[in-house]
């Protein structure tokens, strides 16, 4: 455990001693803030309009359904597709480039401890992004009364979604010593997994349902609605375990090729 924390501490240090952490957090805050404001403003305008029309038509426009849910469903996941590669690109690529991988792999720590430490470090940086998100959402409680329970599911969902991408991005980072390549490949891979469920639009049958099941979006819908489904939990946890497992295989194969 001490080894894992030592590596995690080193990663956190590296993020916050370089512009990466601040850049990622700032970009996230700006994008998240813009979307949050747009959804809220639209909501306010529409509810006024409804009232002016005598409250007819749509009776229960809750803030949960019209602001928070579209925020999670539609935009935050896409912002993460873009920003997570920036967090994971350096995890192994930088160690390979600077030769410090030789220090890590000849130290009395297991490959798993190194991987777990790196994953934990990246997860902590990502955690600050979740905190930013809920900072925005928290302001809704000052002026309205959204229901709090769905927020728990949404937070869990966003966390698992991001953690899955982090695990896969870490794996991709083991293949190259060039951080830009790692970031570009990660982004392309994430985007592909994200849109895998599009196949259902033009085909049906076993292949398309399997592909659709593998898509990251399919499993996020329930969380965005505020529902924790065991099936989705299992899916994201499996992706995380898979990513860590693939990383450990790749690090094993790395020895001798650095």
């Amino acid at each position, binding site marked *: 455990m001490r080894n894992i924390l030592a590596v995690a501490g080193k990663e956190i240090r590296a993020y916050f001693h370089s512009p990466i952490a601040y850049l990622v957090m700032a970009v996230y805050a700006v994008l998240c803030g813009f979307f949050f404001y747009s959804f809220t403003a639209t909501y306010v305008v529409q509810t006024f309009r409804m009232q002016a029309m005598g409250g007819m038509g749509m009776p229960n426009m809750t803030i949960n359904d019209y602001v928070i849910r579209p925020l999670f469903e539609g935009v935050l996941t896409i912002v993460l597709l873009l920003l997570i590669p920036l967090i994971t690109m350096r995890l192994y690529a930088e160690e390979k480039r600077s*030769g410090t991988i030789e220090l890590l792999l*000849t130290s*009395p*720590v297991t490959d798993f401890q190194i991987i777990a430490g790196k994953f934990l470090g990246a997860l902590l940086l990502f955690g600050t992004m979740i905190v930013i998100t809920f900072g925005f959402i928290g302001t809704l409680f000052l002026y309205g009364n959204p229901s709090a329970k769905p927020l728990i599911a949404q937070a869990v969902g966003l966390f698992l979604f991001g953690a899955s991408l982090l695990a896969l991005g870490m794996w991709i980072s083991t293949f190259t010593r060039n951080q830009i390549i790692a970031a570009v490949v990660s982004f392309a891979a994430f985007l592909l997994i994200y849109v895998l469920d599009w196949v259902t639009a033009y085909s049906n049958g076993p292949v398309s349902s399997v592909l659709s099941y593998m898509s990251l979006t399919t499993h996020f819908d329930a969380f965005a609605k505020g529902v924790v489904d065991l099936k989705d939990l299992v899916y994201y946890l499996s992706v995380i375990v898979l990513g860590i497992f693939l990383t450990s295989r790749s690090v094993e194969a790395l020895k001798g090729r650095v």
Partner: protein
Amino acid sequence: MIQVENLTKRYGPTLAVSDVSFEVQKGEILGFLGPNGAGKTTTMRIITGFLPPSSGRVRVAGYDIADEPIAAKKCLGYLPENPPVYTDMTVNEYLAFVGRIKSVPRGELKKRIGEVSEKCSIADVQHRQIGKLSKGYRQRVGLAQALIHNPDVLILDEPTAGLDPKQIIETRELIKSLAGQHTVILSTHILPEVSKTCQRVVVINKGTVVAVGAPEELTARLQGYGSVLVTVEGPAPEIMSKLQAVPGVNLVEPVEAMGARVTLEVHTEKNRDVRADLARAIVESGWGLFELKTSGMSLEDIFLKLTTRDLGEEAAHAEAAASAKAEVVN
């Protein structure tokens, strides 16, 4: 302390290390000598557990590096060719991190950092960012990193590369002072390094061990005769016949001629110093004596002799293979 048995490493079809075996006793400094691309780095990387060998075994302090890697690595300090430093950390932060992953007890960490900084004379830069240090300092930070957990075995890949002459001498002294309590393997392609620091030398070329022994032993074994270089101003043929007549001289060969001045190599009988006789012969004949020096086999000559033996026509081929290997290694 270190046993290397029948180590072989292939990178695809190229054989980087072939059937290398040697042992290092406790407290000994072993020099690992060879031209670039000879397989030094590969061998060291296998000993440290960074590379798996294609076949053969390595034991460090009694632990097999393949079967008990964690136990073996705890006894190992390793300085790779390029010091493995995080350029965005300060020296102290870096040493603290390395100490933590090398299982230095929490309470001792601060003390150990102080000790190794003192030993490697980097105490004056402990709060500086490593990325802003000169190559010499970085090299010594790398050395400090290898020493932080006070390992029984130290593997140093070209520890003096990039240092200035004063630092080289200091580093050599440091390495020498480590002998006794630490067992050291150090690789180099710089020869004086070996004769100045190591008690035993393994010469490696093209992946195989070509000679093992103390530096003096190697010199003695290969030195069949002595020779003296003489630079004289005068008629070359006459000088040669005159010197040939000096007792103890086997053969006189011209080396270089510049105007009226000739440089001759005088091969003498083993263990016989003829310099005084040569000087007298030249001066008595009225020629100008410009230079007279022994050119006994230096470690350089031995090295060249060992590593270029039987090269002949395969030279070009071997050269290509060696550079290909070097590329793979790097």
